[in-house]
């Protein structure tokens, strides 16, 4: 699949889309396919601090619990309320289903992340498609 170029990616299969000093975070289509049916998402509350590379929540499929890793540091400004009632939307539209919005602490952190092309290569090597 062609990953949207309007955002950057992590090796833990999160995406981050920047808009000025704010950023939106979600998980990739590869992630939702690997997880299977998503039944539960645990996100931090508004005001919580994220640190790049550290866990900030969990996403659960029927069979397993997976950690969410912060693509960048910042303060949570908004949480997607849909996640509590319709977690399956992450399966049907991973790139359109955001999880949290943050105010970025240090936009330079994003330089360390993967472009869409690099992420596609990375996923292909992982045995994905």
């Amino acid at each position, binding site marked *: 699949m062609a990953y949207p170029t309007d955002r950057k990616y992590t090796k833990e299969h999160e995406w981050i889309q920047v808009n000025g000093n704010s950023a939106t975070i979600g998980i990739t289509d590869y992630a939702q396919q690997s997880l*299977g*049916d998503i*039944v*539960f998402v645990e996100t931090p509350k508004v005001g919580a601090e994220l640190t790049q590379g550290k866990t900030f929540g969990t996403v*659960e*499929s029927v*069979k397993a*619990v997976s950690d969410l890793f912060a693509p960048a540091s910042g303060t949570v400004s908004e949480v997607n309320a849909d996640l509590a009632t319709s977690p399956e939307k992450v399966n049907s539209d991973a790139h359109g289903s955001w999880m949290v919005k943050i105010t970025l602490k240090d936009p330079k952190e994003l330089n360390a992340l993967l472009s869409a092309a690099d992420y596609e290569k990375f996923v292909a090597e992982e045995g994905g498609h």
Partner: protein
Amino acid sequence: MGAKMVEFNGWDMPVEYPASVGGGIINEHMAVRTGVGIFDVSHMGDIRLAGPQALAAVQHISMNDASRLAIGQAQYSALLYPLGTFVDDVIVHRLGEEEYLLVINAGTREKDFNWVRDNTRQFDCAVENLSDDFTQIAIQGPKAVHLLQKLTDADLGAIKFYWITRGKLCGLPNTLMGRTGYTAEDGFEIYIPADETTSATVWYEILTAGKEFGVVPCGLGARNTLRLEGKLPLYGHEISDTINVWEAGLDRFCKMEKPEFVGHAALEKAKAAGVKRTLVGLEMTGRGIARDGYKVQDESGCEIGYVTSGSPAPFLKKNIALAYVPIEFAAQGTALKVDIRGQGVGAVVVPTPFYKRPKKV
């Protein structure tokens, strides 16, 4: 078929099938509850006991009463250690006058066979390990009988639940088919020759014949959620070599009126001494999913037990679990907590099984 595979006790097994074939744990689970799903369960083991003292041998190692079985009838039972704890659970099938088939779990094939052979030496009875001779396929769900009937000349309508029959299946003669399963639904388990060509042919014939019923291939993921909703035990979880029959709540399959069987004396003692802990059903009341091994707490947060199996229940649309707790916490309606990654999340003791298939009107 593109399934996500996992290693399970030395077997390469599908967890779930891809969406392109109608798979995914939730789809597979719902297919079995409302239509029909098929499972390759060849990892299960098969032990045949035959001979003049086959019944005596079975009676000695199995806790249920096999003398009640007519030819063609099956029963759920367990093989026990002298302490009254579980070697394995098993379905005992009476195939003939002096012939019984025990179908056992995959993870315990070697252990079970050795145990059966070692504990029946004193009986005039041949014990054979037929596990590698059979491919076993389970066809489960309200439409299972209609699917299978298309492929066999045996009159499946005449076979009651937990009875077996033989017939021509997909051209294979004299094939064993049992109206048994591990999904808490109606369904059949068929036993066909294990060579790859036959197995693949039959599998695909079932899928083709099942198209009109919306058949879905199902993996271990759905197998687990289905049996959990029906409170069917899984070895290593609800039953094990450190849990006894009374704790597991399997009294009705344990015929203490039999004069003896391995474990009988210990079970008598245990009953007299009083059971200290018991298996209960939990439904999460707070936001969270209880999973295998999570600790159970009382309302004040003190650890009192543990979850044996826990998962979202796709049909019931609840998060459920089975857990061992001290008997004083076992009453229905008891409020408890489950420690989910450091947080005590509310749960309540509920009646089991969580799901019972609708009775045919």
